[in-house]
């Protein structure tokens, strides 16, 4: 399999997953803003920080709701906006069409056209919550379609690695919403903690699964442990890392990447219940760095191999 093709397939998965997760993130954040009383210190700007985009302040003067949402959803100059991700996913599928089942291409193309209609206009679409829920649903549809119609060979392995790396990364970011809120608001929010974590879990469609798993009142430490360490919940970081490890098994020259995944897995399984506030935030930074290191290793091993390695 050509390196370029592997790379494009990998990014198809990442961009679809990123689209889905950004839509989820925006929805949960909008909900939180409605649920939490003013004055607990939750601000739209934090959403930008969480999503990791750097060029917001260069482009907008104030970080009000409208600007933040436009930046996260519609702005083609933000490479992580939903519209940019959809365009990038489409371009990557377009150039690997011989490997992706044709329904896969059609679905990605339709979703891009839907996104362009909804987020390409001057104003944000009406019924934003509904629109974003539809985006989430369609992304899931594409993921399911590929899982059910594409041979699970090398190409599919790169797809799976891309999807789970992106998902692990985004789950850490969404957990960060919770910890950042707690830091920002200090003691006054503690009585609202329950509501906060419920929203975080909902953002990841994790509420029900969490309920089945943890049979007591929602607590921050339980929710964090669940989202980071559960091996069975498909959006938990530990689960995603296990999926990546599994996909790597049959790929050639996989040892360095397997070691990188191992490091991330060890870190995610450390005692997160003991962490709170600033410590948790820093822990998540470290975890994101390990996840980033897995990506770097995948890239240097399979996408840009040095010529003299095997000659």
């Amino acid at each position, binding site marked *: 399999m050509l390196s370029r093709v592997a790379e494009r397939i990998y990014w198809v998965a990442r961009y679809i997953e990123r689209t889905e997760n950004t839509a989820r993130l925006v929805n949960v954040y909008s909900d939180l803003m409605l649920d939490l009383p003013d004055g607990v210190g939750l601000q739209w700007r934090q959403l930008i920080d969480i999503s990791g985009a750097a060029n917001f302040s260069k482009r907008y003067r104030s970080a009000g709701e409208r600007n933040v949402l436009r930046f996260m959803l519609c702005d083609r100059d933000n490479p992580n906006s939903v519209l940019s991700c959809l365009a990038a996913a489409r371009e990557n599928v377009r150039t690997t069409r011989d490997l992706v089942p044709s329904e896969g291409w059609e679905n990605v193309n339709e979703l891009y056209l839907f996104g362009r209609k909804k987020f390409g206009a001057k104003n944000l679409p009406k019924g934003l919550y509904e629109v974003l829920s539809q985006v989430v649903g369609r992304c899931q549809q594409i993921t399911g379609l590929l899982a059910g119609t594409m041979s699970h060979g090398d190409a599919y392995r790169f797809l799976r690695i891309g999807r789970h790396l992106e998902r692990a990364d985004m789950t850490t970011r969404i957990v960060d919403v919770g910890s950042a809120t707690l830091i920002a608001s200090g003691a006054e929010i503690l009585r609202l903690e329950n509501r906060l974590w419920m929203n975080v879990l909902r953002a990841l469609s994790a509420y029900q699964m969490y309920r089945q798993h943890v049979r007591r009142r929602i607590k921050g430490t339980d929710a964090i442990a669940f989202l980071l360490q559960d091996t069975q919940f498909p959006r938990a970081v530990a689960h995603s890392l296990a999926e990546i490890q599994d996909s790597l098994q049959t790929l050639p020259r996989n040892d360095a990447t397997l070691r990188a995944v191992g490091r991330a897995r060890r870190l995610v399984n450390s005692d997160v219940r003991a962490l709170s506030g600033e410590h948790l935030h820093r822990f998540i930074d470290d975890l994101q760095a390990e996840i980033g290191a897995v990506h770097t290793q995948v890239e240097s091993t399979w996408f840009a191999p040095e*010529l003299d390695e095997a000659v």
Partner: protein
Amino acid sequence: MRIDWQKYDPDGNYDELISSPGYPRAAARGLAGHLRSLGDQQLARRQRMADLAIQEMGITFTVYSEGENIDRAWPFDIIPRVIPAREWQQVTEGLKQRVTALNQLIDDLYNEQRIVKDKVFPRALLKSSKNYLPQLQGSTPRYGVWAHICGSDLVRDRDGTIYVLEDNLRVPSGVSYMIENRSVTKRVFPELFRKHEIEPVDDYPNQLFDMLASLSPRPVEFPEIVVLTPGIYNSAYFEHSFLAQRIGAELVEGSDLTVGDDDCVYMRTIHGPQRVDVIYRRINDDFLDPEEFRPESVLGVAGLIRAWRKGNVALANAPGAGVADDKIVYTFVPEIIRYYLDQDPIIPNVPSYLCMDKQQREHVLANLDKLVVKPANESGGYGMLVGPHASAAERKKFAALIRKSPRNYMAQPTLALSTTPTLCDGKLEPRHVDLRPFILQGERTYVTAGGLTRVALRKGSLVVNSSQGGGSKDTWIVDTGSAH
């Protein structure tokens, strides 16, 4: 309503299907009878079936329009064009003869230049050739073959004579549509294939693979063959990916390949670098290697020509083969065949006037309203003057162009291309066609069974290019031997 062949009138042109109103030619008798039994409604239904099949199979070509690339459904007419097997046998021999002579010419021009010394091929012509690459002098690719894949355009004139209109030796395209047209036609008229002896066309990918494999510099059983494409934005991308799939080769872009310190070509794969033996390139010479040609090219591979010169990789077609794909060189082909093969040409050239010759130039300038003027190096019907259809201003412009650079132009009489029945608004009407067969030359020479028939869909039009409103048809080589 049933089709009445009495009312189908080709208006004095040679028609591929009937010999005179009401009388189908022998090879087309079965088809004509069958079409008559179907009637208009059935025909319309079958055309819809074909359109649907083309959509489902994703047969497209790309056009650049309004700043965007659009994948368009391939325009296809369901009524096949029929050629008798016996006639095709002659054409096949003629094409083999032609390509053999052209390859000897290219090899000679890059080596001893005997034909120039013997004054059969003017030195001035070689000197002013845009496609000749002097830096490749002294090279001889395997079997002395430079143009491994050739698409020659054939036309038939009013009296039934088949002529070669041009030879495409650079990166000819269309063969994938020839194969796809057949699969669509089989879906639309399965009953006809049961009843008639129609030569299959889908052997081409096997032949292409064998030819490419025969070029491999390493004597391995399964050489690594790749198809090099400029990418998704190229108008023939569909074909590149189609052929790569059918011959089981990787479809690569320039950035997938690299030339190592050992002057061998490698492709970047997830298993690490893998040696490449044969490159079926669909990129023009200019862009192949930024070290040798256009330094700004990002489509090609730096060092590729170096690897090729050392014999570490085969390129099909070889760089520089385009020297024989030049409308002026074309006019010399009959002489070239006589010179190298000591044979008379089996298929004639269209009579042509060379503007570099003073007498012929005067004739061209005096008859611009009757002639077609072609530039030496364009393809796809660009930069041409069709005298009878041109305005006085256009003719004046061309007269000036010809005087300014006579080497760049040649002229031919306007041919009355043959017609064949075509479904137009639900009725069968005569439309002009040409034919592009494909010739493969490596260890052996192979000619496709028929080729790609292109049809000018507008009434009276002679323009068959798909980018300019042309369509295409399936082409049947029908053996009537047993029917007589």
